[in-house]
């Protein structure tokens, strides 16, 4: 059974803290994605990666960075957490350029910044 695992389901952090959200997939997928989900705004892409050490900015990268040192792991970093980063964060992975391409999602991390 395919799996995308996010390290935490709920997280509470203080303003100004450096926050790490971890995502691991066991499907040998090339593509990995980080989204934030807010009511009425849908899923907005923060960053994605199509290979180890490769990354591209999504639509809302400000205040975030990412790391992909190994194929199976994609980390989202909030350099200095702020209250407007309180949100649901979803990680996803997908195989590269195949006809049966689909994205698989983790269970989400609800981050609250206080």
């Amino acid at each position, binding site marked *: 059974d395919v799996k995308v695992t996010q390290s935490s389901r709920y997280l509470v952090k203080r303003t100004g803290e450096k926050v790490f959200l971890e995502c691991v997939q066991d499907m040998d997928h090339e*593509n990995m*994605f980080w*989204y934030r989900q807010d009511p*009425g*705004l*849908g*899923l*907005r*892409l923060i960053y*994605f990666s*199509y*290979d180890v050490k*490769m990354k*591209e900015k*999504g639509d809302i990268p400000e205040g975030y960075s990412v790391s992909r040192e190994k194929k199976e792991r994609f980390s989202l970093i909030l350099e200095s957490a702020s209250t407007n980063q309180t949100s*649901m964060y*979803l990680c*996803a992975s*997908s195989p*590269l*350029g195949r*006809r049966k*391409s*689909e*994205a698989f*999602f983790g*269970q*989400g991390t609800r981050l609250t910044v206080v």
Partner: protein
Amino acid sequence: AQTVTQSQPEMSVQEAETVTLSCTYDTSESNYYLFWYKQPPSRQMILVIRQEAYKQQNATENRFSVNFQKAAKSFSLKISDSQLGDTAMYFCAFMKPRGGSEKLVFGKGTKLTVNP
């Protein structure tokens, strides 16, 4: 840049009836994938159905089918014989496969409630 628009923030339907969710997209590409994803209240996002743009035939998966109109850039989802378990957020998504940098773009979602 590709954009995906879902014009219905919320919809409701009676159990056993049929409902159609709308999605339009904007792209200059000719080859791409379109998806409908479902997110139940438990949060795990799962794929409902997928359409490859080069295929003219509309995709179907049991009670779920799409109406893909490539020229109109429209991709609607029809749910037949609605069930209580269909209550969820539904997201339309677009991906252009190009051997690297395959960004997956979502619409804002439609909240569907199936009433008993």
